[in-house]
């Protein structure tokens, strides 16, 4: 079976889209990113990633919600697809399993 690889940044953006729950588009996603992770990313990068995610089938998009400040242009609103949520869950689960395999004390020691 082909496993779609999800990069670290892609994963975070996908999570943000999930968090924003139907309200995620370029501006809100990058704002949320800045707010929650403290990362400052260029606009193009966020857009790029969103389009990539859509191509891979993790998110789907619809046009809508035009406002005056946008010059009457519609937003591309993203929503996580079933494939996307499964991928997020798989990652979550994998991490969980891996954490549980960690011998107790290892991380604490090394962090010292």
């Amino acid at each position: 079976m082909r496993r779609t690889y999800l990069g670290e940044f892609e994963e975070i953006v996908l999570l943000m889209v999930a968090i924003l729950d139907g309200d995620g588009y370029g501006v809100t996603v990058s704002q949320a990113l800045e707010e929650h992770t403290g990362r400052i990313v260029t606009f193009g990068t966020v857009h790029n990633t969103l389009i990539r995610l859509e191509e891979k089938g993790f998110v789907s998009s619809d046009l809508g919600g035009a406002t005056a400040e946008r010059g009457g242009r519609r937003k591309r609103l993203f929503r996580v697809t079933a494939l996307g949520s499964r991928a997020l869950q798989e990652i979550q689960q994998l991490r969980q399993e891996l954490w549980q395999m960690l011998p107790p004390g290892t991380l604490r020691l090394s962090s010292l």
Partner: protein
Amino acid sequence: MPPKSRPPRWADWLLERFLSPYLLEDVQGDLHEVFYKRMAQVGVTRARHEYSWAVLHYLSPFFFKPAPSEPNSSVYPSPSLLNLSMLRNYLTIALRTLAHNKAYSIINVVGLSIGLAAAMLIILYTKDEVSYDRFHANNPNLYRITSRDITPGDQKPGYNTNTGIFQGPKFTAGTPEILSFVRFQSNQHDIKQGNEVKSQETFSTDPEFFQLFSFPLLSGDPKTALTHPKSVVVSEDMAEKQFGTREALGKIMFIKTNEQFEPYTVSGVAKKCPQNSSIKFDILLPITISKEDFAQSDNWFSFFLNTFVLLRPDADSKAVEATINRIYQTDAKNTIVEMAKKFGIKSKTIYSLQPLTEMHLSTDLPVNNGLVDESSPAFSYILSGIALFVLLIACINFVNLTIARSLKRAKEIGVRKVVGGGRSQLVVQFLGESFLLCFVAFGLAILLLLLVLPTFNQLANKALSFMYLLDIKLMAGYVGLFLMTGLLAGFYPAVILSGFSPVQSLYSRFRFTGRNYLQRGLIVLQFSLASFLIVATLTINSQFNYLTTKSLGYDDSNLVSVNKSSLKRNEARLLKSELMKFPSIVDVAPKNQGFWGTVAKVNGEKQLSFAYETVDETYLPLFKIPVLTGRNFSPDFPSDSTQSVLVNESFVKEAGWKNPIGQEVNFFAYETPERYKVIGVVKDYHFVALNQKIRPQLFTMKPKNDFGKVFVKIKPHTETESLRAIEQTFKKLFPISPYSYSFLDQDNLKKYESEAKWKQIMLFGAILTIFISCIGLLGLATLSAERRTKEIGIRKVLGASVSSIVQLLSSDFLRLVGFSFVFAFPAAYYAIDKWLENYPYRIEISAWMFALAALLAILIAFFTVSFQSIRAALSNPVKSLRAE
């Protein structure tokens, strides 16, 4: 809202330009939203910067690509023609097939590279030819004043490229469109070089020379270099020779003018004249025209120099021509009438302007009188023709061999098609292979070019260098040549091979039909070109032999010619008596220098122009030229020098005399007309080169005419001691005159240099075409022998002899070669007939030349083919029959 409180227009423009349309709306909307938000937070300027910065991040191919394909379009992506892994596969296959068929690859590459090298060489040559005189910054406003004489009733005007002292200054003064003029006169001056005296070509010119022409000076002021009458500008080579250094400014040079050496100050050192310049000077002197000369109106009729003018950039050359002709008609009005009366000139002179850049290749108005490197466009045409022939033949080889060999690749093509290779992919593959071969050939051709360039330079009398190649236009030309060759050679095979039916080719029942016509046609074409060139070469060869060995009507062996300008009678006598003291010297005869011509009246009114020779009584016997009727000059008749002349047979014929002896020749053009009696008729001899007809000739002993050279007849095989004797005597008698000698028979050979050049070029071309045709034939013979291995095996088993098999394999090709003569010979006959018309004395076109060419072509083809057929015929049939 202040006017600037919106995103920058250019950024929006960029976005609209470079963003895929399906993304544009929401991306731009997002960006605008952020912009207005930021404007409120940090102000307009900052927001605008951020907006621009953000836009720049969208300028990447990622956002430029079109929308992902609609779900209903094909699930299978259509492979691009230039898929990387396919390309890699093509390359591997191409290299493998090349390595597998070494003979085939070598023939193709070598043939193509020779063809390409020839074409490159010719491009180089032609480029140089057309680049002549183009380096002057004042082009295209530079012109030379030329003229044509139109005689009523005569169709062809007489062209004159020279002018006199008047045309430049008078036309310039009267025509506002002419900015300035420069006269350029060639002279021969004696120059002191250390203790020696050398005769050197010098040029006299006007002070504007360096403003008109772009000849940079290493030192000295171009504006004033030639203003002082006793100044001289030398080339860097001359400065090196004369002073041992290029820093020659202000040094003194002794130049003999007006019978004595006078000091000239070097006022400028010029850079060496470019190779592609019609003007090449070593010594430039200011031109001096005396007041008397300038006052004498008949100098309108004295033409001896080149005049160049610079027109205003907006001037219309046709209008200027009209103006200068008007000036001539007014200024020279009286003289024209006077001259017409005096000489009976009926012709009318019309001046015209010739662009400087057209001079080099002009046939009607060639460069002369000090301007050098006269050339004819015919050379460029013929050379281009030969190069095209060679390249064409190489391409034909390529096509022929690729198609012939394609049977072997039929399986590959079949498999490719079965697994889904499209026709266009196959075309790309085969074209790519041909380009690959072409590329290798191209590299080889450049190497070859470097190798033969020195030889070619010698042959074509050029100084081309490889650095010439580093020119944008030329590079483009070569790349074009490369693409054209690749396409020409690869296109047809690519189309044919890609059209194979996979079923047939995989069943191995594949046979070409109809293809043979093309292949045969191409062989015929190849050999037509080759045999055409063989005939041409043979003709030129025998015409050349004819020119150089034909009896000239006089004996030019063991004759040394020594120049001595203005040799007086007593000096000549003294020189002769001194020389005759040496036993190795047979006789001495003085003569005038160069070719003199003049005009006189015979039979009362009839005017005749003729070569005018000043000799003494020893001249004819020395050259063993017979006097047919009458007698030679003789010391027994002291009045000979003032009353008698000898004429040649052509003169008699032209004058229409039945009884020439005693006829009168009237030199009416002199101040006081002089009349002479003909005392003898000399047998016609070729006093000019054989490519000119013998003209009327007249011999005189007139004491006022100075001699200019002496011919010394020496005993055979005494060259060394005779030359030493002549040199010693000459230096003793004329210590300040330059001494130079030459052998007359060698001089005579030099007259045919142009023919010698043609001969070499033709030979070169013929050998190349034959060679390339033959390697092509060799390749084809190899492939055909390979294809018929089984057949040969069976024939041998059934008892065929080696010779019958050789015959079987060769006869096909030989028939084609024979067929090519049908086309080649009529064309060749026509071409050589036209060429030979240039020569009044020429060989007859004879059948043996064609027979020889045919024999040669067939022999060469036979040897090429039989090499393969004999090998095939000798092979063991067991091997060929067992191999499956």
